[in-house]
């Protein structure tokens, strides 16, 4: 592999990540080495990473995990009794009572699969969920790439295609490239708060035919980065569309715990599917994804996620399980997942604190989203539709192209790291920025101040 020519052509074909991450890392290093900059540190709100912005983790979660890591803490009376009980229970399902043992069933610890299944059943008002349909791994991208690898085949015209929303989660386009799958874009309707439009789906599918073999449709609900929450009617339409066209539904539902819009409610694709006629509920293949990187948990660094597989051919499902056999998922995130889906109940010592913390996160998010949205709309040349869920704001820049080039300076001049819309797949002339608004209010103030200062300077440079 002495030269680029020898590198796997498929790897060469993966679109490179934007240089922003490298730039941010370089600036952070320079600051650590004492370089003087107009700002003390880089604020990175390009990813959905609340902890890095200063949001506190959930106490119950961290307490239980601490005890699991260092069981001597079981003797510590100052830790609530339900924390110690839960830790003991979880340690009991680890080999040798230690989370250092391999998780031998490659799809996850059975107790955790069970808890996830119970959570799903509760959430969906009783629709059955089988533990053996739950597969746990270290992060959504990992689980999704397993599924994509399974479906990926062919090249050029016969290459597997996935209908992908524009905009989509910023890590998705690279992932599709890596799995050798063609991204077939379908535009979300910006003027309708980024709603999904069936006609657009059909158009996208039509244009794909002959260019690749579309096999799946990727949905992000609540939308990442749009914050749009799909209503039941839309979900039903998408399901019917998938059924008619023989597409597998890949439903990423990580931000289901972050709906704050008035009169908006998260409904899972599974619930809607099971309320439809048998010809859909028993045949449409659906894989739904959730993770501990959700808004309330924010445990992005711990890396844990699950997928639930519905209506997949048992032989195909077996392959999927076998594929996980090369690498068992880490144990600690699985325990974290168990706590996420099975929080303290009313009456438990930790219940009140836990509920308060969750409530605090949700209100902070709602307030921040509203404030930031108003703020951005006040800036000339920027517009941002009101959001209803998720941790991002996705604002449009109505600026001429030369200004966009200058926008990259935001990181260097203000130490503010936002996400660029092109990472979310948008290749058209409608430039967007993406920012995570789940942060302590003081941090958000700082972010908005730096943004305004830069934006106004930018406008002044190009009168």
């Amino acid at each position: 592999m002495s030269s680029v020519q020898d590198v796997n052509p498929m790897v060469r074909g993966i679109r490179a990540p934007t240089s922003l991450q490298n730039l941010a890392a370089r600036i952070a290093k320079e600051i650590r080495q004492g370089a003087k900059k107009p700002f003390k540190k880089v604020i990175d709100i390009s990813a959905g990473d609340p902890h890095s912005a200063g949001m506190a983790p959930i106490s119950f979660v961290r307490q239980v995990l601490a005890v699991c890591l260092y069981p001597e803490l079981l003797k510590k009376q100052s830790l609530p009794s339900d924390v110690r009980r839960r830790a003991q229970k979880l340690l009991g399902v680890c080999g040798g009572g230690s989370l250092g043992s391999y998780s031998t069933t490659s799809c996850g610890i059975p107790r955790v699969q069970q808890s996830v299944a119970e959570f799903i059943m509760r959430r969906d008002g009783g629709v059955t969920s089988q533990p053996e349909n739950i597969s746990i791994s270290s992060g959504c991208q990992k689980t999704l790439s397993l599924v994509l690898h399974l479906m990926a085949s062919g090249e050029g015209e016969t290459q597997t295609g996935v209908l992908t929303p524009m905009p989509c989660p910023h890590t998705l386009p690279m992932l599709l490239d890596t799995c050798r799958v063609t991204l077939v874009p379908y535009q979300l309707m910006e003027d309708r708060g980024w709603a999904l439009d069936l006609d657009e789906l059909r158009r996208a599918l039509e244009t794909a035919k002959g260019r690749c073999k579309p096999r799946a449709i990727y949905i992000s609900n609540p939308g990442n980065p749009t914050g749009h929450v799909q209503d039941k009617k839309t979900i039903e339409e998408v399901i019917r569309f998938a059924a008619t066209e023989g597409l597998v539904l890949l439903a990423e539902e990580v931000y289901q715990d972050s709906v704050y819009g008035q009169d908006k409610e998260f409904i899972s694709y599974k619930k809607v599917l099971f309320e439809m006629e048998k010809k859909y509920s028993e045949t449409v293949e659906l894989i739904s994804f959730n993770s501990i990187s959700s808004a309330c948990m924010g445990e992005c660094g711990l890396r844990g996620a699950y997928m639930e597989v519905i209506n997949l051919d048992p032989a195909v499902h077996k392959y999927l399980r076998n594929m996980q056999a090369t690498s068992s998922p880490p144990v600690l995130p699985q325990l974290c997942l168990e706590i996420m889906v099975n929080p303290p109940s009313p009456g438990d010592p930790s219940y009140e604190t836990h509920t308060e913390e969750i409530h605090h996160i949700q209100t902070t998010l709602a307030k921040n989203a509203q404030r930031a949205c108003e703020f951005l709309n006040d800036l000339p040349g920027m517009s941002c539709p009101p959001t209803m869920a998720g941790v991002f704001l996705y604002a449009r820049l109505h600026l001429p192209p030369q200004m966009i080039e200058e926008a990259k300076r935001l990181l260097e001049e203000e130490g503010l790291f936002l996400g660029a819309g092109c990472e979310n797949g948008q290749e058209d002339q409608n430039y967007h920025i993406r920012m995570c608004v789940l942060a302590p209010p003081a941090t958000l103030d700082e972010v908005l101040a730096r943004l305004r200062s830069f934006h106004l300077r930018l406008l002044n440079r190009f009168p």
Partner: protein
Amino acid sequence: MSVLQEISSNMKNVKHPSAVLARQASRINKELREGARKPYQEVIDVSLGDPHRAGVKPLSYVRQVLAACIYPQLLDSTGLPVDVRQRARKLLGDCAGGSVGSYTETAGIAQVIRRISEFIMRRDGGVPSYPENIYISPGSRWSVMNTFNMMVNNKGPLRTGVLTPVPCQSCTIMSITMLGAAVVPYYLNEEQGWELQVEELHRALESSKGMCNTVALYVNNPGNPSGHVQSRKSMQQVVRFVSENRLFLLADEVYQDCVYGEKSEFLSYKSVLSEMGPPFSDTVELASFHSVAQGFMGECGLRSGYVELVNLDPTVMKHVYTQFSKDSCSPVLGQLALDLMLHPPQPGDPSYPLYKEEIQNIRSTLVRNVKRVAEVVNSLPGFCCQPVEGGAFVFPRLYLPPKAIQKAEEVGMQPDTFYCARLLEEAGVFISPGCEDGQKEGTHHIRFSIMTAEKTMEELLSRLTCFHTQFMKDFS
């Protein structure tokens, strides 16, 4: 995707280790839980290199620091030693927002990577190690797969091939096949303690010509499951071989801390390469892998390791970055554990005495286990065990009587799997058959981990002796 035909053909080609024994163990455990009467009270599971599962305790210092990182309120109490709290504070300072729940840079936390390079330099007597060549990963399997994926070319006329040892841990084989590449086996020499012989490498490479395009050589040292520790001479021969044949050297060195043989010493491929000087030292492309799972830490469940890439073209490294970027970052707690493994307490630190004691205990347990296994297994007729110089496993040769082989065929099992299934059922000992890791045609082996508590090993050996004697009698 409801039709099997639509599954990627690479997936279909992957051979999976038999789940038969795992299912059987599950069933037996369930029966025991439900009160069934058996000649044993619990199953001893030594099928994987999983020390904690088999009773080895985690290191206190490691767990204390990680607990404080996960729940920083513990830093306020005096319950934890002062150096634990200092270390935790330092590590949390390296995490964005002071939380282990934040994403890190793709390759890992910058300060941890820098310290990894310092460790490597110290270990190799000063040979430079550059942080930009190091990537932290969620386990060595992941790093091997991602590194190897860089070299695979599924568009060429011939499949990409990798020279792989026999025996070799099955998940490496699976990873290679899953990527669409071909395994080109080279046989380790059992009679010489599973030594790697360069003539065999030549033979294997020759045999692959015309069948696949061999681009790499995979070596594990100390050997898994062979337990062999390579000599400097052997490693130099390997370096010359890969250099002559322009192969990429994938050196899996996860067991570098586990060397027991009195005359054995772990040498890293990087240090050997550097000693050999130019042209080898600046042209041979090398990837070396390490992990937290396999040393005395035994933290298999934390899933963390790193890969250091040496002598890769800078333009190729750009693609490495892209390839590794697709997976966000490695789990943070694992990254911190890696730091703790490579930079443990030093003499003078409050935690040092306990740490030293725990490490010594684990080490002497393992040395003792290796000795006991050799004594007991070699005394049983029908077994022949090569000396275990390092690693986590023992891989004794099993000479099965013809009647046993016949019976195995009748029930549709590999003969060594059949032996293991019987052992599991009748004696409650869960080991793995040699066929999973590969062996010469017509030979049979068993594999089990030597990383267990002492009394677990004694119990295991006693049950094995009993069972084996009876088995050989039954099938004589």
